[in-house]
């Protein structure tokens, strides 16, 4: 286990209310009182109005929307989707939250962080990240009416939100590093390069969040490292662009995995990771039909014809109801990868990656 070393080295730069309001006024000619008037119908007595998102975090641009969270002690209902409003050219997306919503969300985050299980997208679909965004909009949000929302928590709300991000992105990095090496073994260089890029960029995400920077989603990573983590900017540039198909993809994968290992402090070799994960293909079964062989899933209404070699690899799995890859068996590696890449099998990890075991906060990045 690696000890967490030192304190975050990056000061969190949040815009103040005046700066955000001036920016919105310059883009759209809209003031905060006008925003408050437009969303007033959603407020219950005592509700706070919190502005969040890229515009409040020193990022964003003229076409960015303004994200608003409304909640308070009397809020009895939550909106299921963001409620859109337009003020001149400014789009305002509003999330109305029930009074106990944030308490529940933070409680769940603390429980996950205290446990051994993987986060595994428990706080939002991998790319939608609805709960992660919500956590951070409130943690790093800018109160524009009423006090900030203070969920019940055993420690700093920002620290909980930050640790959850570190763990989430560390787990994404681990899975992507594993799949990249699996794809190489399965002779899919394009898949290998895509996963290797994801591993490297996920390790950069985990690193900036380990240093206390707020979450702004995947799309702002380039601007974020340029502005706040220049030590990572070169690595970001190095892994953002995929090699051409006829280039040395294996070298790109090795380099991305090494960079991820360096930042995380974890061993991410195929052999090390193969022992930690298991594939699961649900109700998939092999059916011979004359000279043909089919993998069939009734649940997914799917049928896939396989070769004799693939059928043999399927029968050679190390267990039913979930199997681990043996790095020494090429046919098994290839079949596992092909099923995963086609969406037929999923990948489950035996345990998560507790923040205390990760080294992302080790080095200065600014």
């Amino acid at each position: 286990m690696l000890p967490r070393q030192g304190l975050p080295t990056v000061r969190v730069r949040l815009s103040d209310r005046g700066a955000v309001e001036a920016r919105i006024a310059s883009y759209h000619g809209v003031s905060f009182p006008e925003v408050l008037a437009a969303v007033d119908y959603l407020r219950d007595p005592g509700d706070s109005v919190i502005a969040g998102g890229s515009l409040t975090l020193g990022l964003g641009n003229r076409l960015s929307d303004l994200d608003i969270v409304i909640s308070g002690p009397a809020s009895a209902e939550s909106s299921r989707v963001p409620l859109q409003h337009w003020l001149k050219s400014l789009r305002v997306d509003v999330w109305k939250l029930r009074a106990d919503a944030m308490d529940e969300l933070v409680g769940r985050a603390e429980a996950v962080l205290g446990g051994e299980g993987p986060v595994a997208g428990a706080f939002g679909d991998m790319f939608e990240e609805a709960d992660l965004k919500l956590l951070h909009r409130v943690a790093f949000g800018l109160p524009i009416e009423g006090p900030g929302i203070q969920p019940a928590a055993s420690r700093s709300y920002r620290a909980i939100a930050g640790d959850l991000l570190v763990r989430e992105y560390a787990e994404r990095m681990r899975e992507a590093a594993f799949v990249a090496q699996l794809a190489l073994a399965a002779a899919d260089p394009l898949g290998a390069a895509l996963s290797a890029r994801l591993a490297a960029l996920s390790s950069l995400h985990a690193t900036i969040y380990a240093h206390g920077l707020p979450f702004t989603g995947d799309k702002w990573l380039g601007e974020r490292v340029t502005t706040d983590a220049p030590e990572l900017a070169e690595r970001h540039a190095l892994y953002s662009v995929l090699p051409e198909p006829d280039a040395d993809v294996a070298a790109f994968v090795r380099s991305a995995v090494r960079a991820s290992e360096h930042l995380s402090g974890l061993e991410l070799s195929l052999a090390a990771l193969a022992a930690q994960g298991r594939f699961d293909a649900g109700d998939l079964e092999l059916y011979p039909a004359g000279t043909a062989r089919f993998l069939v899933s009734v649940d997914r209404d799917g049928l896939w014809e396989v070769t004799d070699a693939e059928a043999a690899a399927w029968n050679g799995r190390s267990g039913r109801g979930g199997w681990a890859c043996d790095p020494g068996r090429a046919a098994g590696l290839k079949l596992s990868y092909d099923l995963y890449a086609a969406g037929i099998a999923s990948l489950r990890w035996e345990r998560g990656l507790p923040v205390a075991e990760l080294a992302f906060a080790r080095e200065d990045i600014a």
Partner: protein
Amino acid sequence: MKASGSGAGRLAWCQSQALWLNLALVARLEDLEGAVEARQSGLVRYSAMAIGEDCALILALTERHEKPLPVRSMRAGWALARIRDHALWPECWRLIRSFELSQTNEEIAAACRRLVASTRAIVGQVPDGLTHDGYFPMLALTREWYKLLDALGQKGFFPDEWTRDRSPKGTA
């Protein structure tokens, strides 16, 4: 009329997934245009990568009707493999691969606009849900597709966070 027989559910599911991605392209384009104007090169490149992936997925779903989709991290590769012989493969790959720093933001944006226009020339235009004029037509279109998917027993295309009964409790 094109009969789809026992594959009706799969056909509708694939078409609806492609529609949702097509509708969501307006947000990608908004990110792109805002980033070009503000000279935010990182966001320009991220948006281009996402547009390339979404267009590849739209084309793969529309032309191959394959289900299921893999996890999000695998979809770019899944889509590129299924449109390998398509005329738009090189443009999709170019955007998904991303761009060296020597490429200008304007050149990247132009490539994105071309690919979106070419993709929509094949799969059709959709309302812009980010504008006053397009918001309600977009809602009406998704409502009609949800009725169709319900009739065929197929899962809808909205993010799970918008439709699930719990988690986060506050936004369900």
